[in-house]
């Protein structure tokens, strides 16, 4: 077998960080190569270099043994490299077929030949055995369909080497299995695949070889059949990963948050949450699992008063909160860590102290009458910054100048600094934070339960939910199903529920 693609001594430096440090990787034709590493290990930078989106500061790229300069995606495409991005690159108002041919449209005179366009897309789709309705608008396509469209987009352009960036992050287990079947078929037809992931189980299942990256460097490459999850994890983080915790059950405890018959529309006025019931007890961590976009985001926003509800009742310790303002809801005892931190978790142009007091600025001791009490604010926010180990030169610093992990800590300092919360809603609370920080935040959540609060923990990362939760519920298609209390079999149950497997 001959070499399909190789990078030699690639180095890429960004201000403050060496994203790739003398990276060497060679992949053979017809191989599935997994590239794994934690967030920030340099995987994505490397892929962007291979796709011509970034230019390396030094080092070279070799395709089929010949050194090539890739100065733009166009170059990469013409050398037979195709990329399937983690966030799909489809134009919502175009059909799947139009998306696939975008940039290489078949013509009839001056105009696009729509007929030939559809026909040629169908041909390619049939050649690789894809099951896809190409006349659908991308906006209406399911996540799996969108991904197939992305892969077809590359194949249509004659890609020989496919790069898939975290392809399973948004897929259900079922869709993931379908994807793997598809990838195997492509490899059989001689394609080469680079598969970027941090999900070790999947890597072990699909890849031929696995390259592990850490801090911008290649730690090593192993034959997948000769390794295991344990070894890969150790290579990735340089030490053992965090373990679980002692679980509690809440049979005899009180309900702190009760949701009854809740229905909510999403931004496009489609039913996102469909008649949901949920009880959260004090002292428990209730994990909420589910693939993104199954209604969990809208569910939380409705609880927080950020999204109108069509129907239903929400109570905290017996007090109804639906229809109240977000502030009143918070005052009845909810702390909230939003999932999209840049959208709704933080004002990046505001100072650190401003971000920390935003939930409480109007009450003592932060303010008196109409005025903010600055010296009190500074003292208290400084304490919180210290307690939550935010690494910052001071509290009078623009929050946007901090790193992603530290920004997440600022949010935690604001929301989880309130020790009297009865309900904590934490959506992806540790996303982008290093291991030490993750452990600290998890400990804070556990401390809440020991004080009698209930924690609702949402995460797209199943491992995080499994590591902390006493009980898990799963969102699928706007409905909720109970996966029960934590035990050895819960991963399988949750996995099946995420794909709509059990339930009805």
């Amino acid at each position: 077998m001959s070499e399909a693609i190789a990078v030699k001594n690639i180095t890429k430096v960004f201000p403050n960080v060496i994203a790739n440090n003398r990276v060497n990787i060679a992949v053979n034709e017809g191989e599935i190569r997994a590239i794994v590493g934690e967030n920030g290990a340099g995987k994505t930078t490397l892929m962007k270099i291979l796709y011509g989106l970034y230019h390396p500061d030094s080092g070279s790229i070799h395709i089929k043994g010949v050194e090539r300069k890739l100065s733009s995606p166009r170059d990469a495409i013409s050398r037979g490299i195709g990329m399937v991005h983690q966030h799909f690159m489809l134009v919502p108002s175009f059909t799947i077929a139009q998306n696939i041919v975008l940039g290489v449209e078949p013509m009839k005179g001056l105009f696009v030949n729509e007929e030939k366009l559809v026909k040629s897309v169908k041909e390619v789709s049939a050649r690789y055995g894809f099951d896809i309705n190409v006349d659908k608008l991308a906006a209406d396509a399911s996540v799996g369909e969108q991904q197939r469209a992305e892969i077809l987009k590359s194949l249509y352009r004659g890609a020989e080497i496919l790069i898939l960036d975290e392809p399973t992050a948004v897929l259900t287990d079922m869709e993931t299995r379908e994807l793997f079947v598809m990838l195997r078929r492509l490899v059989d037809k001689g394609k080469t695949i680079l598969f970027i992931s941090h999900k070790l189980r999947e890597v072990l299942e699909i890849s031929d070889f696995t390259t592990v990256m850490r801090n911008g460097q290649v730690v090593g490459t192993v034959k997948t059949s000769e390794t295991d999850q344990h070894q890969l994890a150790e290579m990735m983080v340089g030490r053992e990963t965090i373990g679980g915790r002692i679980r509690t059950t809440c049979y005899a405890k009180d309900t702190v948050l009760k949701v009854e018959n809740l229905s909510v529309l999403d931004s496009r006025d489609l039913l996102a949450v469909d008649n949901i019931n949920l009880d959260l007890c004090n002292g428990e961590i209730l994990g909420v699992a589910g693939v993104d976009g199954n209604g969990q985001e809208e569910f939380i926003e409705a609880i927080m008063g950020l999204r109108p509800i069509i129907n239903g009742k929400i109570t905290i310790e017996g007090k109804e909160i639906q229809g109240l303002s977000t502030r009143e809801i918070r005052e009845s005892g909810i702390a909230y860590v939003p999932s999209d931190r840049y959208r709704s978790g933080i004002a990046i142009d505001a100072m650190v102290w401003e971000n920390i007091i935003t939930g409480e600025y109007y009450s003592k001791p932060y303010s008196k009458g109409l005025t903010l009490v600055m010296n009190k604010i500074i003292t208290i926010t400084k304490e919180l910054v210290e307690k939550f180990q935010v690494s910052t030169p001071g509290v009078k610093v623009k929050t946007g100048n901090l790193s992603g992990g530290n920004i997440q800590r600022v949010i935690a300092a604001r929301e989880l600094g309130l020790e009297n919360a009865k309900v904590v809603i934490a959506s992806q609370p540790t996303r982008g934070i290093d291991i030490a920080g993750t452990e600290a935040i998890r400990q804070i959540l556990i401390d809440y339960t020991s004080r009698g609060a209930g924690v609702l923990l949402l995460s797209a990362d199943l491992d995080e939910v499994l590591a902390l939760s006493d009980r898990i519920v799963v969102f699928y298609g706007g409905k909720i199903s109970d996966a029960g209390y934590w035990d050895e079999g819960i991963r399988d149950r949750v996995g099946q529920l995420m794909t709509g497997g059990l339930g009805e």
Partner: protein
Amino acid sequence: MGSIDFGKIFTLTLFASTFRMATPILLATLGGIFSSQVGIFNVALEAMLDIGAFFAIVGSVQTGSPLGGLGYAILACVITGLVFAIIHLELKANEIIVGLAMNIFAAGMTNYLLVAMLDATGVYQSDLIVGFKEVQIPIIKDIPFIGDLLSGHFPLVYIAFLSVWLVYLILYKTPFGFHLRAVGEKLEAAESIGINPKRSKYFGLIASGFFCAFGGTFLSLSYLNLFAEGMTAGRGWLALAAINFGSSKPVRSLVACLVFGFADALAIRLQQFGLPSQVVLMLPYVSTLIVLLASAMSDERKKKSIMNKHQKLETADI
């Protein structure tokens, strides 16, 4: 005031002048659609109309032909679009603020050049200005009603309405249009398959200038052959409202332009009937607010019906 005879107000002439009054707004709208389809909110349409109107006069005087005027206007407006693009795309200034600056700068510039080039303050009117002539369309002009409605307009009126179709074809039928829309709707998607978004944005702003040049030329070289300070009278802003109403789609935006044109025509008509001009001249702006309100109301009605449907379903479950 009770003695106004509405039969005399709503005449064929009123509808014919609706087309005329809609024309400059429509041309600015089509220009603005190109910007908004590549994802730039172009608030400089007013400036582009102003500059177009002024240079059309200069060109007409210097070349002695309305086409010469149009040529000058196109050149000036294309440069305006280019300057906007450079400051926004190369120097990375905020697009709305650049647009606002453009409006102020253009007002100052046309005023300055009016003195410096044409030696006039406020208004320039002269026999040297050669304007466009009305076009009689053979056959159609002899059909009763339709002839009065459709024939006898200035050429730019026909160009404007035909351009709606042309813009539709460009945006929705050519690969070029596909690429422009892809850039505006999902920039990363366009970039990832090798479309250069910056080039598309340059094109969008320059196309805005191109169409506004026609709109400006219409203002100064059709009907009234003169240039007056502030003669654009907010038509660039009405165009933005039309784009907003039509979700950047040419045909839907046309509807709003016709409403604004009608309000304009009605205002002129009512003035002839002795209503205070100050009140009547508010009509186009008030009609804009009403159009925006009406479209928001119909959106909400749709949403309500969806919610009702869901609620009914739920009661049915029980």
